[in-house]
């Protein structure tokens, strides 16, 4: 019981740390590609991870209530920035179920800028997003 309580509390703490993370800059203008006023939550299965500069991209297959599959592309910060937030290049693996909190692309395509990524075990990591609310005083 205590262990479970502690685990839950530490997960909450990790989420808090992820949100509290320092403001992030990026090599491109966040507003040119994404819309901070359009938040999105994407839950699905990771199908591809491009752990590369200038931004890490990963792809998630999302199944809707009618069983239709949609492929989403999600942008994070640079590998160097992610490592500073606790990521390793194999933290997320193909086949993992993840929940992505972020912002939609302006052009309406199935792309999003990730703010946090929560893995199936409940571990939430900051995605080094240039659209982090803390960058918007």
């Amino acid at each position: 019981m205590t262990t479970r309580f502690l685990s839950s509390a530490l997960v909450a703490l990790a989420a808090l740390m992820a949100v509290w993370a320092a403001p992030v800059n990026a090599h491109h203008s966040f507003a040119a590609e994404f819309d901070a006023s359009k938040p999105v939550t994407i839950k699905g299965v990771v199908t591809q991870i491009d752990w590369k500069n200038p931004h890490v991209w990963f792809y998630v297959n999302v199944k809707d209530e009618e069983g239709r599959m949609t492929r989403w592309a999600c942008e994070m910060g640079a590998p160097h920035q992610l490592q500073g937030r606790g990521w390793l290049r194999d933290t997320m693996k193909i086949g993992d179920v993840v929940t992505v909190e972020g912002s939609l692309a302006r052009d309406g395509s199935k792309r999003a800028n990730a703010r946090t990524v929560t893995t199936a075990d409940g571990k939430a990591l900051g995605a080094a997003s240039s659209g982090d609310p803390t960058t918007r005083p």
Partner: protein
Amino acid sequence: MTERPAAARLVAALLVSVATLSISTAAQRSGGAPAKPTPHWPDGRVNLGPPPGEKGIWTPPGIVQLSLNPKSVNRASPTSHLPDNITLEAVPFQPWARALHAARQADFERDEPHTRCKASGGPREFITPYGVEFVDIPETKRIYIFDVGGPHTFRTIYMDGRPHPKDLDPSYYGHSVGRWESESLVVDTVGYNTKFWMDREGTPHTEQLHLVERFTRTDLNSLKYEANVDDPGAYTATWTGGFILRWSPGTELFEYICQDNNRSPQGMVGADASVSRQRRIVP
């Protein structure tokens, strides 16, 4: 059940620690806790790098602006502001330059060459999120600025008293000569091309740009950057803007190859086939 209060106390202590860390960081940024003094070399020269035996690079504290523009599509971090920095409204733009700046903002800065992995001269070199390092080699009378953002480049500042060459071919970083004025490194640069934005806001310039940058390490953690812009091709008068860079202790530059998987241009303006070649600014 009897252990729950102990666990709760532990979690509460952790949360208090996080809160304290947040407050102390904010306090340091706002000057609450005194930073260590500016480091110097044995000959008295200011050390713009890490103290011996330590690591560190200069990074912008979030987004920084050469001139203050609270209406920018990407708002600056207040901790980066110089006291009494120039506002965008006060910048003496020529009409075409003001219109171009406005157009670049209206397009959410999506046409910026830096996002195409191009080198970025002037102030923009210091606005990369991944930091810069000053490598001062007095034996060669040169200071190098290593910059991993954009195309992973370096810039040379000649400290040997040479003049600017005549008939320079315009280039991204221009030709830089430097000197120490008391505690400040002063760098005079001419010979710029116009293939870059000198800040990420889209502040225009021409090949007539003559930039005088002043770098002052006011304490261990802060580097005041001031740029005097003299460009009769774009402005009606000279003007000075700047920002404060933050020391990131314990960190070093790293390999960053922007060209490896740069999907930003397509994300910002669409695929090549969808880009209008009729626009005044073709990205």
